Each structure stands twice: as C-alpha cells, then as structure tokens.
C-alpha cells in the first residue's frame, strides 16, 4: 500500500472526520491520497487558520483535531496554533511535510527544522525516518495528544518517506515506555481532601479548563451539590458550572467578579480542580489567598505546587476523582450550617458588587450591552467563540454559559486571530448548533482570510465584530498605566467589514442602533451561510473590574 494511503487508513481508525490544511510541495503525496479518501478536508487559506480550526474542532467536540501543512513556511505558520494548543491543553495532531531526507540539513528549498522549531511548544513530536513506522507513529501521536493532559503532537514526514510503499497492517497498541498518563487519584489523599472540606468554614471550589477537558462537569456539579460549596471558574473553565444560582461566584482573576476574588482572598480552604494558578488568577502571588490551605486536583503532576504550594495534592483524572471525593464527603455527614456565615458574606458581595456598566440614553451600543444582546438573540444556547482582547473579557463576563464546550477562546497564549478559524472548526464539529464568533475589529483581521473557506464550504458561522476602531485592551492599558499616551492603537475606519464580507462571498451587515440590536442580531444569525456583522460600539470603554497587574485581588479597581 502507498504510505500515504496508510496515513488515511490510520486517520480513519482514529475516528478522524475532518482535516484542516493547505497543500504544498512536501506534502503532495499525502494530498494525492485525499482524492480517494472518505476523510473530509477543509482547504484553509493560511496554515495558522487550519491549526486554529483544528483547535476549535477539538475544543467543541472533545475529539482530536487534525491540521496539515507543508514543509518550511507551512510548518512555521503552524507554530502559533501549536503553542496555543500547548497552553490550553488542546488535543491536536499536526502533520507537516518535510523536504526529501537526502536534502535535510542542506538548507533546501522550503526546508525548516520543524521538529526543532516546535520542540518547546509541543507535548511530543515525531520525525518519521522509515516509511514502515508511519502507522505506529500516527497512532502514538493520537494517543499522546488525547490522553493525560491533552496537547499538541507534531508528526513531520519527509516527502520521499511518504512516497514509499509499505506493508500496512492496522496497529492496535502503542508502546511508549516513558509515558504513563493515566493516574488514579490516591484514595488516602481523596479522603484527606474530604475531611478538609468538612473542616472548612470558608471553602471555595476553584475550577479550571481541566474540568472541561476531562468532561467532568456533571461530576463537579455533584460535588458542589453535596453541600453548598461556592464555585468560581477560570476563563477556560466557564460552562463547567451553571453561571447562575447562589453557589456561583462568577469568573475569578484579573477581570473576574469581586465576589469571586474576595472569596479567594478570604477563603480558609481552596479546592483547585483542573486549574493551574496562572498569574491572571493569582495577581500578586505573595498575597494570593493568604488565609487558605489548598487541595489541588490535576492530571499533570508538574502543576501541583508549581505556583502555589498544595497542602493536599491529588494527581489524576478529575472525572474519576470527583465522584470519589463527593462520596467521601457525603459519608462524613458534615454540618452544613457551618457555611451559613460564609454564604451570607458571599451573597452580600454579590449584591454589593454585581458586574455593571454605565449605559446611556443615546443609541450608542455599549460593548457589554452587545454581549447581553447576543445572549438574548441566541437564547444563551450558542457555541460562542471569541478572539482575544476586551471583547473576550466582556463575553466571559456577560454571556452566561450554561454548559461546557460552549465557550471557545484562546486563554493561555492569548492569540489574536484565533476566533474565526476556531469557529469554523467548532461548526464543522457541531453542525447542529449555532456557532457565533464575537470578535474584535483588531483580532478578526489576523485570520480574516478564512471567510473564503467558510463561503466555499458553506460553513455557517456568524461573525459578530465588536468594532470600537482600536486595539481596545492595549488602549485600556495605555489609558490606565501609561498616562493615556496612546501609542499605535487607533485602527481607523478600516477595513469596511461589510464590503469585505461581500467580497468573500459572505453576507455583511452593519449595526449601529442599540434599540433594535437584539432583533437585528437575531435576523443576522438566522441568515443562512456565513454572516459578518459589524457592530459599532463605544470606543472608550474599559473592562472592569480589574486587578491591576502585580496587585493582590483585594485591591480590585473599577
């Protein structure tokens, strides 16, 4: 069998439905195999678009995303999605073409050291040097990408290797002596954690993206329901707990709610579940949660005590640990009234410091209102993607995610340009759900070209541009921390997004009227095919509240 046909067989065996990519010289053999393969291929317009589309697909479905690129620039264009997938633990297999083996190291045409360039940003990578290794390598790549703490895996195949013929036999098992990702949580530690929860008078469950990745939302809800534990979530964990009710504190961190951040500041026990104490969460590390002891549950042992020392570490899969913890806690029969004062305190913070913004009587659209309008127009049920910046934070604050995998954004790396391709990938993975992208006018321009792929393939994404004419988050920081010395944040009135949408074969709409915004959004979302909505919002509006960088949470401003 041709090695490239074996690649298709392996992808099929791994359950791959779709590949996002762009052909070039060094992966021509692989692309020939697509001609007769059942696997769907989406031709993106830039490899970075393909990489982020694979991420969006993976984040929406929980399956492994796949992106292809050629050697040299094809591979270097994938570097941003690769690192993005690493930072947010997204399971994606990146397959890159490489120049002929005999030319390696000679600075041949379109040669780049793909393995070397991507090494610091991958979970693992493979350079195939023998065509017979292709099937085993591909299965190992998928296994590594999806198991344990998920992440990106690169498979680099020189073009002469992919042109070879091999004796293909399906591979059922992988052999990775140094890789044992599946750890059972230690039963003694879990019991200890249950006792700590029972002893705590001011507990908080602090949940992160690991709960989404581990499909443990139900298990988290059961733990929270075993008593009246207050729950807060990172940006990446939103949706794993319903964004309403007395136990919900809102998002925590730099642009989190005061209730969430004050609760962390005052807590006596914090149970971190699939979260990693990022600097956007802790603020000033020395003054983070000064009264708290920490339970830390994570599948990656290296996260335990990396930033904040854990008192009760539990390494393992959240989906199996949480039910165990819940039943241990229930067995203790803890007196729930011990939490009365704490919950009353939290309720008072929530009442005193709700998320709020100043609306005006004119017809100008406040960006926060735009998110509320999108929530209303979608019934709160859409898969919402975002780019990176102010619009991302406002979406996190004002779109109340009821379920996991409905909120798709770039957290760790903060990649502008992530949104449109990610929305494409999400729509292909979840064709029956509405997929809307809330983008910034800056971010959208970084992968705008994928509108062509959306139009060509009929990928029904609704692009809602929160257009304030500037790089809003940078403008905000220059206003607050650089004495309003605005430097290169004004984007002017360019481009004309409506005309651009039409040029790409999509529908373009411009909205400027607050009074009709919900209805206008509703009809734009109901319009078949890709739609770009240019929503003009207030330029000088800041995301609040805010923990200033390097400050403790209790000193929130705004």
């Amino acid at each position, binding site marked *: 069998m041709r090695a490239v046909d074996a690649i298709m067989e392996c992808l099929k065996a791994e359950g791959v439905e779709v590949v996002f990519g762009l052909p070039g010289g060094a992966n021509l053999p692989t692309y020939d195999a697509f001609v007769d393969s059942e696997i769907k291929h989406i031709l993106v317009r830039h490899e970075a678009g393909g990489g982020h589309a694979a991420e969006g697909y993976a984040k929406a479905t929980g399956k492994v995303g796949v992106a292809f690129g050629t050697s040299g620039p094809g591979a270097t264009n994938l570097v941003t999605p690769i690192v993005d997938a690493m930072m947010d633990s997204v399971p994606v297999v990146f397959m890159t073409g490489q120049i002929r083996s005999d030319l390696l190291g000679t600075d041949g045409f379109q040669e780049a050291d793909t393995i070397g360039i991507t090494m610091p940003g991958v979970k693992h990578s493979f350079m195939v040097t023998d065509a017979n290794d292709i099937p085993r390598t591909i299965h190992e790549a998928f296994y590594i990408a999806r198991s344990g703490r998920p992440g990106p895996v690169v498979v680099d195949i020189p073009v002469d290797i992919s042109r070879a013929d091999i004796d293909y036999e399906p591979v059922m098992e992988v052999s990775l002596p*140094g890789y044992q990702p599946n750890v059972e949580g230690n039963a003694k530690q879990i019991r200890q954690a249950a006792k700590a929860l029972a002893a705590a008078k001011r507990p908080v469950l602090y949940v992160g993206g690991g709960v989404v990745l581990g499909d443990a939302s139900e298990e988290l809800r059961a733990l929270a329901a075993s008593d009246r534990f207050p729950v807060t979530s990172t940006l990446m964990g939103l949706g794993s707990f319903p964004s309403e009710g007395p136990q919900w504190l809102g998002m925590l961190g730099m642009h989190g709610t005061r209730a969430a951040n004050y609760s962390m500041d005052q807590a006596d026990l914090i149970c971190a579940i699939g979260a990693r104490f990022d600097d956007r969460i802790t603020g000033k590390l020395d003054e983070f949660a000064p009264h708290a002891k920490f339970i830390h549950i994570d599948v990656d042992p290296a996260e335990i005590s990396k930033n904040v020392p854990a008192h*009760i570490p539990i390494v393992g899969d959240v989906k199996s640990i949480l039910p165990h913890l819940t039943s241990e806690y229930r067995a203790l029969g803890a007196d729930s009234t011990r939490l009365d004062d704490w919950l009353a305190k939290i309720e008072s913070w929530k009442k005193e410091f709700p998320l709020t913004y100043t609306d005006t009587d004119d017809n100008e659209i406040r960006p926060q209102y735009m998110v509320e309008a999108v929530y209303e127009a979608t019934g709160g049920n859409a898969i919402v993607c975002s780019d990176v910046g102010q619009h991302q934070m406002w979406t996190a604050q004002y779109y109340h995610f009821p379920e996991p995998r409905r909120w798709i954004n770039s957290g760790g790396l903060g990649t502008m340009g992530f949104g449109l391709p990610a929305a494409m990938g999400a729509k292909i993975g979840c064709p029956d759900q509405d997929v809307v992208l809330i983008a910034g006018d800056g971010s959208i321009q970084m992968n705008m070209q994928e509108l062509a792929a959306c139009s060509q393939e009929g990928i029904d994404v609704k692009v809602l541009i929160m257009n304030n004419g500037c790089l809003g988050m940078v403008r905000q920081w220059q206003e607050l921390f650089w004495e309003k010395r605005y430097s290169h944040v004004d984007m002017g009135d360019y481009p004309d997004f409506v005309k651009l949408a039409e040029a790409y074969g999509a529908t373009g709409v411009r909205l400027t009227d607050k009074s009709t915004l919900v209805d206008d959004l509703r009809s734009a979302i109901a319009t078949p095919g890709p739609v770009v909505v240019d929503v003009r919002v207030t330029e000088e509006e800041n995301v609040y509240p805010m923990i200033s960088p390097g400050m403790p949470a209790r000193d929130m401003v705004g």
Partner: protein
Amino acid sequence: MMNAEGGTSETLSLDDLHASVGVRSGRKHVLSILVENKPGVLTRVAGLFTRRGFNIDTLAVGPTDDDAISRITLTVDGALHPIDQVTKQLHKLVNVIKIRDLEPGDSLARELALFKVTVDGPRRAEVMQICDIFRGKVVDVSKDSVIFEVTGTTEKITAFDEMLKPFGLVEMMRTGEIAIARGRDET
C-alpha cells in the same frame, strides 16, 4: 492527625495541614535519567531546562547495556531550583523513561578530568608528587608539559585543580559527573 487506614470519623483541622513540596533543598542533586536512544532526546532535555529557567551544572550522556536506552547524568543546584519541579517536568517528556535523584549517601559519583601543566626541571617532580597524592596518572609528557588524568568526586577534582594552578595550568577538561547507586539496587 492523618489517618492512614481511613474510614473513621476522625476529624481534621485545617491548621494541621502543611505544604511540603516546592522547597529548595539547598544542595547539589545528581539526576540519573534513562531515556530512549532516539534523535533529539538530549535537545528535549536540555531545551526543557532552558525553557523553565533551570540551570544544568554538569551533563554526561552515554550508552547503557540496552542499545535502545541511553543514560543522562546531570547535576542541578537544589539551592536555586525546586528539585521536584525539575523532575516532574522531566517526567513529562515522553522519551524520558526513569529519573532517579541520587542521594549522596546512597550513591557513588565520579568525574574524570585531564590537566595540562607547563613544568620543567625540579618543579616537575613536585607536581608529579601532588598527582600521586590525588592518585592521578601521567598520560602525556613533553619537554615542557605534562598531562595528568584524575578521576574522583567533583570536590576532589576541584581540589586538585587548586593545587595545580600555581604551577602554570594550561588547560583542564572535565567530563561532568556520572553516578551509580550503591548496593544491589539498580540506579
């Protein structure tokens, strides 16, 4: 307070909980790491140290009795870096099979060094006597130079270096430490 058997109603006070990891040991650590013998593995290990801001003091790589496996022995300053974070990050590398943090009392560490000294006449006898004390060997002699070979702990080689300096040390080569567990157990 900790109840190893569990299952009882013994309660726990949060005040009794202590975080025990993430501390700096304050001493040198010798890590003996078994890795798959594949291209790029050393780069992955070295790159991890760079990326995480850890510093490698010495590094030695060699084969094992299994062709598919190599051994990397490296030393890290436990005063500068939390050693558990170093080993946990190393464990995440798929090609890393096993890591052992060798305790000084339970292991033997050796380094090999070559010293080139310019000496002639009466001082040559003196420097060769020092070499004898350190159980070194003369491996090359010319009219105005001698090369010594010494093996031993890092401390011994450093001491020998100090002794030779006044004689006109031209250059010195050190391999970095390798180490092995004492007793019957495999490293």
